[in-house]
C-alpha cells in the first residue's frame, strides 16, 4: 500500500510525525494490547482527525477510532493524547513540537477496539442514575403559553447544557479511574443543571438521594482535572463546589 497516497506534492515537505497507537481488540482472544508505531508526513493545519484517517487510509486499514462531526460538537473522538484526554478533532499536530504523539483509548469506558470506546453506555447509566430529566408534578396545558423563565436563569441552565458527554472529564479524573462507581463531573454538572432549572421541582433532599454519598458529590477529591480538560470549558469547579455546599446542608 502506498505510504503517502493522499498527500499532494507541496505537502510532502512537512516534518515526519511518529504516532504510537494502542492496538487491541478485547473480543479477539489472540489480540494482545500493544503500541504500534506509524510514521506520516505532517500537512498544513493537520488535526489528529486528519492524521488518523491518513494512517488508516495508507498504513493500517484495521485501525479503529471514532469520529462524527470533526468540529468538537459530537464528543465522539475523545482519546488520551500523550496522556491527556482531548478531542482528537480539535487537536492539531503542530501543538507537538517533537512530532511524537502517543494515542491511547480513554480509560474508564469499555473498549471496543484500539482507540474506540463506548462512552454512550457509561453516559446512559449516568443519566439514569441522576435522573436526568425534568421532574414536575405540575400539569401543563400545552394550549397555553409557558411560564416565562428569567433570561439569566435560562442562560445559566443552557450554559451547563453545553455538555457534549465526550467523557473527557471522566477520563481525566483520577477519582473516577480509581473508583468506577464515581458519578463523575458530567453527572454532578447534570445535577447542577436541573437544580438550576425552575421547571424541575426536585428539592435538595431529592438530589441528595441521587448523589449524596461517597460515589457521588462526597467522593469528589477536587483534583480539578475535569475543569482543566473539559473541551467545552464548562464551569465544573464552580458547580461541583456549589453542589457540595448544597448537599452538605441537607438535613
Amino acid at each position: 500500500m502506498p505510504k503517502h497516497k493522499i498527500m499532494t506534492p507541496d505537502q510532502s515537505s512537512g516534518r515526519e510525525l511518529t504516532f504510537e497507537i494502542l492496538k487491541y481488540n478485547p473480543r479477539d482472544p489472540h489480540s494482545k494490547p500493544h503500541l504500534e508505531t506509524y510514521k506520516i508526513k505532517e500537512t498544513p493545519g493537520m488535526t489528529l482527525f486528519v492524521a488518523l484517517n491518513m494512517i488508516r487510509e495508507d498504513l493500517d486499514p484495521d485501525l479503529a477510532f471514532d469520529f462524527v462531526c470533526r468540529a468538537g460538537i459530537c464528543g465522539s473522538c475523545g482519546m488520551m493524547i500523550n496522556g491527556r484526554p482531548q478531542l482528537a478533532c480539535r487537536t492539531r499536530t503542530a501543538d507537538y513540537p517533537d512530532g511524537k504523539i502517543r494515542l491511547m483509548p480513554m480509560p474508564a469506558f469499555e473498549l471496543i477496539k484500539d482507540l474506540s470506546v463506548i462512552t454512550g453506555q457509561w453516559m446512559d447509566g449516568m443519566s439514569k442514575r441522576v435522573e436526568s430529566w425534568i421532574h414536575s408534578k405540575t400539569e401543563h396545558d400545552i394550549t397555553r403559553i409557558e411560564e416565562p423563565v428569567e433570561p439569566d436563569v435560562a442562560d445559566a441552565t443552557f450554559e451547563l447544557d453545553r455538555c457534549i458527554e465526550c467523557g473527557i472529564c471522566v477520563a481525566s479524573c483520577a477519582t473516577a479511574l480509581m473508583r468506577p462507581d464515581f458519578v463523575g463531573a458530567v453527572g454532578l454538572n447534570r445535577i447542577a443543571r436541573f437544580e438550576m432549572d425552575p421547571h424541575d421541582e426536585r428539592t435538595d433532599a431529592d438530589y441528595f438521594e441521587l448523589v449524596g454519598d461517597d460515589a457521588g458529590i462526597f467522593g469528589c477529591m477536587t483534583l480539578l482535572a475535569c475543569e482543566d480538560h473539559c473541551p467545552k470549558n464548562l464551569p465544573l469547579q464552580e458547580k461541583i463546589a456549589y453542589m457540595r455546599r448544597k448537599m452538605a446542608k441537607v438535613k
Partner: protein
Amino acid sequence: MSDLIEGYMGKRDDGTKSRMPAYLDRWQSITGLILGLFIIGHMFFTSSILLGKDAMYAESKLFEGSLFLEEPEPGIVALAAGIIFIIFIVHAALAMRKFPYKYREYKMLKTHSAHLGHTDTILWMVQAATGFAMFFLGSAHLWMMIAEPEKIGPYASADRIYTDNFGYLYAALIAMVILHAMVGLYRLTMKWGFTVQKNPRADRKRNKKIMWAAILFFSLLGYSALATYWKIGQEHQPNYGERYQPQSVQSTGGDS
C-alpha cells in the same frame, strides 16, 4: 434499630439515604482546616528562635500560661498537644477513606498522574503520600509533646533536636507537613468554593499562587529554625540537660 436497618439495607428507616457521608466529608474538611491553620501558627511559634533564645523562651513560657499563672504549667502544652493529636487522628481516619487501597487503584492513579501532567492531581498524590508518612512522623512528634511538654525551650528543644536525634525526624516532618497543609488549605478553598466570588477561575489561580508562596515561605522559615536549633544543640551538647535562663531573670531564677 435504625443502625440495624441502615447497616443491612443501605437506607435509613425513613427510606432516605444516610447523611453520614456528608457529615464525614464536612468533618474531614473542618479537621483539616483546624490542623492547617494550627500548622501556620506552629511554624511561626517554633521559628521564634530566629529572633533569639530570649524570644523563644518567652514564647514557650507564654504557652505554659505565664500570663495568668504564677508558675508556668507545661501541662497546658501537653493538653493542647493532646487535643491536636485527637483532631489529627480524626482527620487521618476521615482522609484515609480517599486513599487508593487496592493495587489496581494505586496502579491506575500512578500511571494516570505520571502521564496526565496535571499539577493538582500530582499534588493530591503528594498529599496522600505525606499524609501516610505523617501517621508515623506526626504521631512520634505529638506524643513527645504530650509526654514531655516541659522539654520545650531554647536549650531543651535544641538538645532534643541535636543530641537526641529528633532533628532528623523534624527535617522530614517539616517538608511533609508544609506540603500537606498548604496544598490541603488550597484544595479546601476549591472544594467548598469558599473564596469563589464572581470569577472562580481567577480565584483558583490566585489561591494556587498563595499556596506556592506559602510552601516556599514556611519551608524557609521551618528549615532556618531547625538549622538554628541544630547549631544551638551542637554548641550546648557538653551541657546537655541544662535549661536556658533568660538574660532578664538570670540573677533571680532559672529555666524550668
